[in-house]
């Protein structure tokens, strides 16, 4: 792997950037692998990377039906935070945030992590009490979190309407200063490059069409590029998790919904951090290019279409303008949707399945990007050792039988 540095940048600039090597190979699939990872998004690529790095398993293929990071990895609003309520989630997301903090150096790839702070607004007394409870829970778990008064909020984000007469009055907010945003494509590409350098085969345009199971044990996967034998199969496919589970003969407590987002035309720096509002379903930050990146709530109906309905966007824009009247003449450039796989308790499923040597990592719903490195890290452990790590033991499929749910609807921030 050619290391990126100021010197390689200068050297290549002198050659008009014509000689940069490819960041990863594009090999043809081999007949068999120790581990086949299905899904080449951030979580799948991170899984492959940590399988190779932490567990020495390098005979690995990542199969991606489209292009790397073309699903939810490239469609989210890039927000990273770890201010979740319950101990199980707080530990998992905090582990992920800590990995993010060192990821650019570790991968030798600039993921443009910007810890500009994430603010969650409270619009009524109940919101404020819930946020206070969550902030206290976070602090007990060693996660930085604090409550801001409307005056402190106004000082940080002057364009936010905190006047008492506002349609959505702002009574306070929680703030996680270590939260922020990162370049989502770079996270996928950085993990892909790191995994490839350790010998992982990354195979794009290769769709899994069937999972071969014999005697309760997985044998391999049928793909659009032929059959591939596998010692273990690790499925990380977000919105299509139910489809893959059906191939293997079991059901998931997951429903797929569209989640929409959009960006505005670029403007000069005006919005310093990330502002989220549970109550009105809007979250907004400003990218380095100057575009406002704005996310909505999910569409109510299930879908695999990667698009949603306009009323959801209209509702979101209405809420945005009530909070930020200054954006009223801003034009929107692009709007899109992704398919999110939502669990009944708004927490993911990471672990073993009824089929031996088949593992699923799904159900991240509306908030998977922030968990990308941590998700890959614990999933790689689960696959390599055939047992979950302490960090993801609570996120098993069995919790929907035992009833030990991890209810994170409050912290998930997008109502579903």
């Amino acid at each position, binding site marked *: 792997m050619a290391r990126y540095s100021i010197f390689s940048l200068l050297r290549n600039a002198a050659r008009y950037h014509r000689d940069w090597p490819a960041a990863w190979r594009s090999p043809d699939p081999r007949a068999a692998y120790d581990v086949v990872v299905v899904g080449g998004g951030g979580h799948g690529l991170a899984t492959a990377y940590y399988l190779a790095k932490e567990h020495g398993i390098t005979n690995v293929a990542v199969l991606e039906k489209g292009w790397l990071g073309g699903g939810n990895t490239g469609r989210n609003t890039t927000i990273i935070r770890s201010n979740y309520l319950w101990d199980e989630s707080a530990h998992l997301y905090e582990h992920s945030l800590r990995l993010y903090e060192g990821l650019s150096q570790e991968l030798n790839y600039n993921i443009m992590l910007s810890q500009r702070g994430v603010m969650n607004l409270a619009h009524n007394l109940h919101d404020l009490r819930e946020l206070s409870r969550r902030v206290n829970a976070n602090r007990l778990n060693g996660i930085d979190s604090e409550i801001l008064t409307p005056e402190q909020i106004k000082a940080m984000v002057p364009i936010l309407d905190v006047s008492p007469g506002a349609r959505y009055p702002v009574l306070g907010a929680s703030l996680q200063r270590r939260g922020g945003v990162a370049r989502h494509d770079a996270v996928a590409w950085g993990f892909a490059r790191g995994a490839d350098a350790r010998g992982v085969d990354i195979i794009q345009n290769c769709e899994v069409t069937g999972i071969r199971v014999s005697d309760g044990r997985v044998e391999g996967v049928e793909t659009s590029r032929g059959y591939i034998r596998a010692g273990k199969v690790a499925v990380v496919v977000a919105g299509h998790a*139910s*489809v893959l589970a059906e191939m293997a003969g079991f059901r998931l407590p997951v*429903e797929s919904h569209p989640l929409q987002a959009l960006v505005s035309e670029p403007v000069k720096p005006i919005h310093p951090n990330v502002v989220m509002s549970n109550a009105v379903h809007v979250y907004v930050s400003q990218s380095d290019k100057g575009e406002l990146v704005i996310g909505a709530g999910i569409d109510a109906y*299930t879908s695999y*279409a990667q698009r949603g*309905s306009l*009323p959801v966007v209209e509702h979101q824009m209405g809420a945005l303008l009530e909070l930020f009247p200054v954006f009223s003449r801003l034009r929107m450039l692009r709007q899109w949707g992704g398919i999110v796989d939502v669990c*009944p308790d708004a927490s993911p499923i990471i672990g073993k399945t009824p089929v031996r040597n088949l593992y699923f990592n799904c159900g991240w719903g509306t908030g998977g990007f922030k968990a990308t490195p941590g998700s890959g890290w614990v999933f790689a452990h689960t696959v390599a050792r055939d047992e979950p790590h302490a960090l993801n033991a609570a996120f098993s499929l069995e919790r*929907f*039988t035992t009833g030990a749910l991890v209810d994170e609807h409050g912290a998930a921030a997008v109502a579903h």
Partner: protein
Amino acid sequence: MLLIECPWCGPRDEQEFGYGGEAHIVRPADPHALDDAAWGEYLFMRTNRKGAHRERWVHSEGCRRWFNVVRDTVSHEILAVYRVGEAPPAAGRRGE
């Protein structure tokens, strides 16, 4: 935006309706007779079909009545609408 044909009020905008999730999930006649796995299956497991999906809608801002819809979850095309208690039309049985 979906244009949904309410069996009582005719075609109306999606915004007038509420979504009720997967249809034909029958509450167990004797919940006490179920083990944890069967109860979990009833409460949480979902078909989440890619393709013709049978689902419930309610005309919240119209007649406020529930009904069933068969909708393609890839194209969003509404394949059939039928009343609660009626057998699903053929379109809804595809892929079973």
